[in-house]
């Protein structure tokens, strides 16, 4: 149990996907201007991470490894993720149209979210069992969500503050990320 907790905290905080591993940066800087959007986005991403990990684990361990075809993992994983996102998109479109239109293009963009692909790669590299992979996906998603929500809260404030023209938008967002990154590096060595 403590092993699983360690994996969760490791993925969420110590090796936070956005601030430590540089993954999931595009949505981090793009979507995070409104708090509600940020929250729904992170829910969606966490869900895709969980599903992707659940599907790629058996494929890796029962098909790729026995066939000595691990080099195919890049192609296979991204295809799995693309398919999953497509299916989820169709599902949301049919069941909750308002949510679907709120997401807009960002749902499809989860496919190219480095964080989702990143989780599947980490699961294989670290040699996690199925349960460990799910916990790691949950942790990664939680960490991603935490940082996204924090960032959007800060950006909402930045929108209405006085900044030099050249700093507005992305540059100041990067500086905020730098400070957050510094704060999160305090988690190193916790486990």
């Amino acid at each position, binding site marked *: 149990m403590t092993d699983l907790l360690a994996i969760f905290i490791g993925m969420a905080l110590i090796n936070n996907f956005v601030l430590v591993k540089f993954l999931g940066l595009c949505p981090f800087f793009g979507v995070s201007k409104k708090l509600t959007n940020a929250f729904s986005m992170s829910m969606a991403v966490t869900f895709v991470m969980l599903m992707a990990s659940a599907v790629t684990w058996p494929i890796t361990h029962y098909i790729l490894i026995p066939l000595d075809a691990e*080099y*195919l993992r890049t*192609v296979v994983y991204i*295809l799995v993720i693309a398919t999953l996102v497509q299916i989820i998109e169709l599902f949301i479109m049919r069941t909750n149209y308002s949510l679907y239109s709120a997401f807009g293009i960002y749902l499809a963009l989860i496919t190219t979210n480095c964080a989702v692909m990143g989780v599947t790669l980490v699961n294989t590299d670290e040699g996690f069992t199925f349960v460990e992979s799910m916990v790691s996906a949950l942790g990664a998603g939680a960490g991603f969500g935490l940082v996204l929500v924090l960032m959007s809260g800060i950006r909402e404030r930045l929108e209405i503050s006085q900044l030099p023209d050249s700093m507005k938008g992305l540059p100041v967002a990067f500086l905020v990320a730098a400070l957050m990154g510094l704060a999160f590096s305090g988690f*190193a*060595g916790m486990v």
Partner: protein
Amino acid sequence: MVLLKLIKRFYAIIFLTLVVAISATLLGLTHSLTADQILRQEHARFMAYLERMFPDMDYFEHEEELYVIYNVDDEIEGYAFIGSAPGYSSTIRVMVGLEDKATVKQVMIIAHTETPGIGDRIEDEDFTGQFAGLPVDRIYLNSDDVDSITGATQSANAVIRAISEAVEEIFKEQSD
């Protein structure tokens, strides 16, 4: 005629399947071309480390995880094993050379991607050198005989853990 109609209807799927098939073939080809070289590289690097550690090595045998090093006179030069543990930003792999089954001869870091300038100080002589001559059972976290690295605690501790955990694995099996 029917075939043509079928192709038109399912064109998208057929096209994608074709693309995937070509991709898989291409990759399989690349893999078979590079697989040998990849293995050769790994083997060459492993041998390079072993030879640096035991200059008089002639050949080696391995029983499970422990490598037994022989010199030209068929005498045992020493032993070696590989340990690994997660560090700060990567899994650190170490090769530990032993004089006899109880004393360390040398420790070499064989793989890591720790932070350059901070975590990669585990490669410094000051750090790895301290293990030379140390009894194997004195190497564990917070041992009085082992120093860590300020500012690179996680990386340094990973090295120590890599050694101590591998020792436990191997010598536990030996005594079984």
